[in-house]
């Protein structure tokens, strides 16, 4: 383990009980993490902004509760970072873009508000690909994030800062967003746990939208237990997001220790085909063997339309992005190009100054596939294939409780390695976009590492609103990796 990933070993429950027992204070803990950011983040660049006074004021409120002997809320004193596509009133929210430089949103995202209500401490806002568009974090207008395990490699994207901050011990947990893999893939690259909740499980109010039928908010943490705890806090219905589900939120930590005995776990052939790195394959197969030895029934399954997922995703996501990003026009907030003679010129010059190359590429592609003469061939076609991809999963989940795959086809690649080839970059999401299109839930859990010491994550996919079972499998995998598999 490199010094940059030698994290202070702190769990959410451990922090709360240590503060309650008076063994530490929220202030002391916050200062440790602030010092760590000050010392390490010039090398990693996970944070775009920090506000030490704000965090210390939050910590003081927790310490007041503890001093009075009051019960502490679930996330009391836990140092968090927030991806910069989520709003916190009065704090910068750049979405990794120049077009929102200087913007101070007048409202707070529901997920962020729920964390605050549960006693979380906000260290700062985290770097990401511009408008969450990217698989390497190289599309941030403020410079890339470096992988804490190997500084010449990408942390994954788009929530690269959120994954790297947890991996480098610069936050105990973070929030990220996932549209086509932006939580799971960086979790895999950085060796942490990342959760894609079911579409509708977490309110998106206060999320700067990229593709509204796909965007989701989810947690990163060092363990499945911590990730499950955070999801329990941020999940639930919200009147401010019409797509949020009214289904009750279970206790996601209740079944963690049940193990996998008797569970049916599917392994889809299509996720182990050409293009999968051999070290990733070995690590995932070894993980599957451990789960089998622990009593899970492993079933070979097929998700026959998988190869069409990337083209389907890039039509639908860019079409929705072209509509969502029309709002950035220099009128109401953010950047405005100076000295334009007409409104139309101001729009164009503002968007030219404010958007980076990948954002422009996706807006152009999305506009093209929605434009007259191409709508049926591209957009309608992609929506039809989306249904086939979703039905693949619904069929599979009649036979199995969860599905095991690699999270990404390779470990973290080098900075600059794919930045000139959009299709090669898009293929980094080949195992993650399908779950995004289908709306099902997933989690990436560390499963091994390459000979070079790069983390490899296993993706566990579950049916809609079945997060509890994913956490059960993920926690079992963590335990099996720690103690070694029992002999069958």
């Amino acid at each position, binding site marked *: 383990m490199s010094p940059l990933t030698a994290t202070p070993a702190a769990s959410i429950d451990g922090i709360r009980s240590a503060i309650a027992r008076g063994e530490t204070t929220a202030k002391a803990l916050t200062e440790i993490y602030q010092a760590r950011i000050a010392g390490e983040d010039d090398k990693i660049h996970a944070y775009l902004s920090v506000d030490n006074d704000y965090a210390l004021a939050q910590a003081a409120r927790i310490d007041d509760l503890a001093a009075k002997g009051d019960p502490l809320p679930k996330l009391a004193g836990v140092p968090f970072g927030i991806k910069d596509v989520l709003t916190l009133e009065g704090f910068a929210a750049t979405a990794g873009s120049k077009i929102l430089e200087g913007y*101070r949103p*007048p*409202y707070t995202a529901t997920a962020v508000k729920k964390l605050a209500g549960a006693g979380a401490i906000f260290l700062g806002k985290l770097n990401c690909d511009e408008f969450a568009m990217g698989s390497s974090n190289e599309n941030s207008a403020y410079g890339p994030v470096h992988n804490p395990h190997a500084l010449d490699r990408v942390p994954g994207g788009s929530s690269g800062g959120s994954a790297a901050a947890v991996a480098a011990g610069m936050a105990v947990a973070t929030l990220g967003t996932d549209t086509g893999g932006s939580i799971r893939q960086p979790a895999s690259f950085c060796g942490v746990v990342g959760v894609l909740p079911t*579409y*509708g499980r977490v309110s998106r109010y206060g999320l700067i939208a990229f593709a509204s*039928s796909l965007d989701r908010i989810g947690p990163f943490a060092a363990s499945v237990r911590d990730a499950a705890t955070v999801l329990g806090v941020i999940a639930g219905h919200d*009147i401010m997001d*019409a*797509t949020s*589900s*009214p289904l009750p939120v279970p206790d996601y930590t209740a079944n963690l220790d049940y193990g996998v005995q008797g569970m049916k776990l599917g392994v889809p052939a299509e996720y182990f085909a050409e293009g999968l790195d051999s070290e990733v394959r070995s690590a995932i197969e070894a993980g599957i063997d451990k789960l089998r030895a622990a009593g899970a029934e492993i079933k070979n399954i097929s998700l026959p*339309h998988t190869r*069409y997922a*990337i*083209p389907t995703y*890039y*039509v639908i996501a860019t079409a929705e992005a072209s509509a969502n990003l*029309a709002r950035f*026009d220099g*009128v*109401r907030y953010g*950047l*405005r190009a100076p000295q*334009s*003679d*007409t*409104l*139309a010129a*101001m729009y*164009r010059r503002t*968007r*030219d100054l404010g958007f980076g*190359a990948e954002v*422009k*590429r996706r*807006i*152009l*592609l999305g*506009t*093209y596939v929605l*434009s007259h003469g191409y709508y049926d*061939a*591209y957009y*309608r*076609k*992609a*929506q*039809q*294939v*989306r*249904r*086939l991809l979703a039905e693949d999963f*619904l069929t599979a989940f009649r036979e199995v409780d969860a599905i095991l795959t690699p999270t990404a086809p390779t470990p973290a690649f080098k900075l600059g390695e794919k930045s000139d*080839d*959009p299709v090669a970059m*898009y293929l980094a999401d080949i195992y993650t976009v399908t779950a995004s299109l*289908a*709306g099902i839930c997933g989690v990436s859990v560390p499963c091994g590492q390459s000979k070079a010491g790069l983390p490899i994550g296993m993706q566990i996919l579950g049916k*809609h*609103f079945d997060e509890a079972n994913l956490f059960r499998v993920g926690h079992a995998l963590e335990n099996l990796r720690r103690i070694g598999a029992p002999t069958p």
Partner: protein
Amino acid sequence: MPETERVSPDDVRRVAELANLELSAEEEPRMRRDLNAILDYVAQLAELDTAQVEPMAQVSEVLASVGEAPSEKQSVLRDDEVRPCLDRAQVMASAPETDSVFFKVPKVIER
């Protein structure tokens, strides 16, 4: 559609105009190259016969089919009640140019 060069230089300019994007002389050929590469990759969707497949626009459509969400017919609307919204002064504080009541923009009609 032609097998090569799906997107012409004119297409790029037309789409950029629709999207209110300004592309420099250097950006235009690069974007054309990338759009062609991506759309060549997307073209494989044509292999699938989807004549009998309903388009899926939202996850809620499949949730309804597995009984995890109300179907569109039963979909529950919230009560149409007046609730507080963001404070005007706070919102206007973010505007590039404002007279504190309206957003100010350059002239809309040329000449």
